[in-house]
């Protein structure tokens, strides 16, 4: 089949409507996991099919698309997904956060603050924050229904008992509007504060698990912690080797066989613009 014979954004219109309805439900109940009829995509599960379906359901001819993977626009996955959407829609793409209307991401939120009108789509492997703590799904559902989240607090307690601090550095559990416990997807702890009261719409798609959840703009998002062990942002001792930033999330790069290390910004757009 040639590119022209695919429907706009690959999905048929009925599927897009189904996904949009699920998105609306998710937006109406911030943090709540809405089941949806996840479709087969030309990606295997675990490679971003959920995020891709959300993006494809929303993208319109006037959108400007940015796709990042671990903060970078130029990794294989980011490139492939961006190309796939471009081929099936013909929309404009960009690497600049400021120019994008729709941003699909795996594992990072850009350093550049988002604006009202922008939509972030997150790729989520496991939307259920208590997946490992409580094996019974019926019990997990009840816990969400009753806002009975003591178990998650227990997990944090264990971390502090064992390591002296909460050891979770990514996929850090958050409370949304004091009601639902949510997994923010495997973004680093560093990015969690960006979710709170963001002007942008945040959408989370899990293809294999068939769930969508959402944070409408200006939603209260608080990471779980203890009064005497409050949530702390990650810090690095050095600045970015390329742009000198001390405020961004840094990746550690091994430069040569001698093991020389360098820290550089994970957000390639942010780094390049400085």
């Amino acid at each position, binding site marked *: 089949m040639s590119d022209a014979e695919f429907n706009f954004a690959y999905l048929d219109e009925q599927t897009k409507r189904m996904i949009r309805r699920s998105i609306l439900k998710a937006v109406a109940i911030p943090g709540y996991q809405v089941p949806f009829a996840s479709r087969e995509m030309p990606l295997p599960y675990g490679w971003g099919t959920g995020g891709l379906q959300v993006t494809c359901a929303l993208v319109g001819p006037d959108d400007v698309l940015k796709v990042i993977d671990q903060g970078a626009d130029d990794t294989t996955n980011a490139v492939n997904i961006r190309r796939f959407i471009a081929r099936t829609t013909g929309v404009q793409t960009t690497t600049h956060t400021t120019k994008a209307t729709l941003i699909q991401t795996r594992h990072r939120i850009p350093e550049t603050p988002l604006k009202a009108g922008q939509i972030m789509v997150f790729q989520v492997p496991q939307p259920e924050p208590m997946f490992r703590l409580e094996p019974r799904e019926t019990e997990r559902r009840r816990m969400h*229904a009753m806002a*009975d*989240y*003591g178990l998650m*607090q*227990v997990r944090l307690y264990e971390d*502090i*008992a064992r390591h002296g601090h909460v050891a979770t550095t990514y996929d850090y559990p958050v409370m949304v509007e004091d009601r639902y416990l949510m997994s923010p997807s495997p973004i680093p702890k560093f990015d969690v504060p960006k979710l709170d009261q963001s002007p942008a719409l945040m959408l989370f798609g899990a293809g294999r698990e068939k769930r969508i959840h959402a944070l409408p703009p200006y939603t209260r998002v608080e990471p779980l912690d*203890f009064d005497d062990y409050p949530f702390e942002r990650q810090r690095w001792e050095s600045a970015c080797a390329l742009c000198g930033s001390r405020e961004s999330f840094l990746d550690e790069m091994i430069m040569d066989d001698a093991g020389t290390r360098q820290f550089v910004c994970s957000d390639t757009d942010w780094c390049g613009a400085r």
Partner: protein
Amino acid sequence: MTETDPPLMRATGLTVRYGDRYGCQDVSLTLWPGEVLAVVGESGSGKTTLLRVLAGRLTPEAGTLYYRDAAHQEHDVFALPDAARRRLERTEWAYVHQNPRDGLRMAVSAGANAGERLMANGVRHWGAIRASTRQWMERVELETTRIDESPATFSGGMQQRLQIARNLISGPRLALLDEPTSALDVSVQARLLDLLRGLTRSLGLATVIVTHDLAVARLLAQRMMVMKDGKVVETGLTDQVLDDPQHPYTQLLVASVPQG
């Protein structure tokens, strides 16, 4: 405490059926704050079924159950919304399983097990939770040095103590114990019974203890109910029932116990 104090729990005509068989049939009882009631019978007598109904975990096909909470409000237990019942389960009620593994999270440390109710009830100070759990571990005679170990490494007796601590840390008013010592070695049982006796008295816990062991009933309970085939055949003060049994089955039970 006077005879006119309102009861903590009132059960009337509780009936549970499994097909044609009765789990328990037309069982009524009243429990006042601070008293211990033993429900005694052999396997299949319906005593565990009754306990599960009293805990709100099994809905009877007939009968009513009322519980008076700490705010002196009486509730129809089976008309309570799920959320309200779950709240009672982690605050005012204690349920101790015969097998401690059924009442513990084996994948989580002893301290986390003991402290979970506090966390579930909104306590957010790690240091305070830690201090409380240590205190309770001491109270049930567990070494606090093992606070961070998994209960899978504990002996049966220690696991049972941990289960008790986990339940009592929220200051419950009602304790339901399902053969709490039956799974333990005899010497370990003795220590645990002493602990239970001390705790029920010092905490003023209204307790229903299910047991097949008359000695346990004599040791812990002021009142006793004997069950057979789902029915209550005799009730009274523990010493009355054991020393002056009226019903043929009770006489059989009492006679079957070797006098030590």
